[in-house]
């Protein structure tokens, strides 16, 4: 009887403490959400302000106190921005550069990584270390000699300087792809070899199709880097019409009187492709990056 009583009271206590813990957790969650939402709003403020400004009337831009959300959003501003600035042209240029770089990466990176991942040969480890060490070399050191070289070859003011390097393999991508290929079981190669496939057949029919997560990383990172690149285009390109969007945008400032409502609209439009790619790709990136120990 006494034991039963005791058991009952312990049970009650447990239930009570469970409820307390649940309540504590709920309060904790609410607190975390409050902090996260506050921080998220804070971080999004510059983007929100850009979007808000892009929908204002010219006289509202410098109004005091500023309006947070324009009372009559001027969607026509975007049409005006596209008409006034060669936005479409610049984004097309960027798209061409992105596509050419992605093709280069997709061709060169798997082939080079295949050599590192699947074959034994003298000096392989030295070469691999050399490849890794080039990741640390800051890009600015190349600018003057390459400018000189491209000038000799008559390639200044063409897209070649901005495209060619991709066809010789980016070291970060080679590293990533090599690590990824090492996780693919060699038994698959052997099976294909028995079926009569050669070394290149194995690469193109067996390995590359299995490398999709790593190839996704190559595509997405190339997209983001090339779309955002600024220093190389301003050095290797002269003609206004050939500028990618990053450079075009930077020069709107000096070239046009500052109409901030149009200007912020143009800036917003310029980041939309990046945001779209990022939203669609983020799930697929995890598998590709996990192979080098970075996952999100």
């Amino acid at each position, binding site marked *: 009887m006494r034991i039963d009583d005791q058991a009952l009271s312990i049970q009650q206590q447990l239930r009570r403490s469970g409820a307390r813990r649940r309540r504590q957790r709920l309060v904790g969650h609410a607190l975390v959400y409050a902090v996260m939402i506050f921080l998220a709003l804070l971080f999004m403020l510059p983007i929100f302000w850009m979007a808000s400004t892009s929908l204002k009337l010219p006289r509202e831009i410098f109004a005091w106190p500023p309006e947070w959300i324009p009372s009559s959003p001027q969607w026509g501003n975007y049409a005006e921005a596209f008409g006034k600035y060669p936005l479409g042209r610049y984004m097309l240029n960027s798209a061409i550069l992105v596509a050419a770089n992605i093709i280069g990466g997709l061709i060169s990176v798997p082939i080079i990584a295949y050599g590192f991942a699947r*074959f034994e040969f003298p000096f392989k480890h030295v070469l691999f270390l050399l490849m890794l060490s080039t990741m640390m070399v*800051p890009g600015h050191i190349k600018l003057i*000699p390459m400018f000189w070289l491209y000038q000799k070859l008559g390639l200044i003011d063409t897209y070649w300087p901005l495209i060619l390097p991709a066809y010789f393999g980016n070291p970060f991508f080679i590293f990533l792809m090599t690590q990824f290929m090492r996780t693919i079981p060699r038994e698959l190669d052997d099976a294909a070899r028995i079926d009569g496939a050669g*070394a290149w057949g194995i690469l193109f029919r067996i390995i590359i199709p299995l490398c999709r997560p790593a190839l996704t990383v190559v595509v997405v990172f190339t997209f983001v880097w090339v779309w955002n690149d600024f220093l190389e285009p301003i*050095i290797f390109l002269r003609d206004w019409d050939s500028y990618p969007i990053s450079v075009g945008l930077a020069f709107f400032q000096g070239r046009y009187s500052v109409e901030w409502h149009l200007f912020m609209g143009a800036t917003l439009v310029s980041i939309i492709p990046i*945001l779209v790619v990022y939203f669609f790709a983020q799930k697929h990136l995890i598998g590709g*990056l996990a192979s080098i120990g970075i996952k999100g």
Partner: protein
Amino acid sequence: MLSLWRNMTTQERRDAKTGYLALSPWMVGFVIFYAFPILATFYFSLTQWTLVDPPVWIGLDNYVRMFTRDPLFVSSLKATTLFVALSLPLKLVLGLMLALLLNLKIPGMNIFRTVFFIPAVISGVAVSLMWIWFLNPDTGVVNTLLHYVGVQGPYWFWDLNWALPSVAIMSIWKVGGAAIIYLAGLQNIPAHLYEAAEIDGAGKWRRFWRITLPLLTPTLFFQLIIELIDAFKIFTEAFVITKGGPLKATYFFLYYFYEEAFRNFNMGYASALALFLLVVIMGCTVFVYRTSGRWVYYEN
């Protein structure tokens, strides 16, 4: 080398040939895009050269000028060092704090991760333009909010003392990029360690200092090197927003290099500047690497 080749079996030789063939694009690229530019920069740095005339050998004159009588070199070095000293620690600490928040197991956290990472994927130009407007002294959001609480906001990018901190604040806005990498490190820490510590009665604070932080040091190390190299290469913000001003307050090193090389076409002197930055970056990397044995924890 030849004997090495002779001692290989036919299969081994075939493998080696395929391997070298596969690597050949990279090897060609290495010569064109790494070996040649570094050697050429070194040579050009010993010459006077305006791109129009052939380079004239002047020995170490460029370096003598750089270290003894170039006020712009000094001010650009000062601005860059200040920027690194200001933004790097803040980015490392705030990135870790943000990652700890994002690592909490709470529904909907993925949305927050996406939101905080957005600033890190937007181009430097777009970010710069956005922030010119955001920090506008008269009608920008920040000064408006400050006005509401009765504070007269500074002139940000247009104030001698605030320009550099403003650029640093802007770079900290991109802290989500660092946070994502920390997050990966946090998720690699085995849960059983926390469970064991909890049974032993270790509180949250203690668990952070004794488990999380030591096991995160490899990530921290990786992050430190990446962010260090990145901070030294600051350029776009100076180009788009401040043009190095006011009064050279944001005249960062790479911007100085750019103006010397591609505006003034002093290619010889600019090559010396480029090489100097390379040595500084490499030196810092090696220093961090060398001291890492003392504070980076490696399993095994």
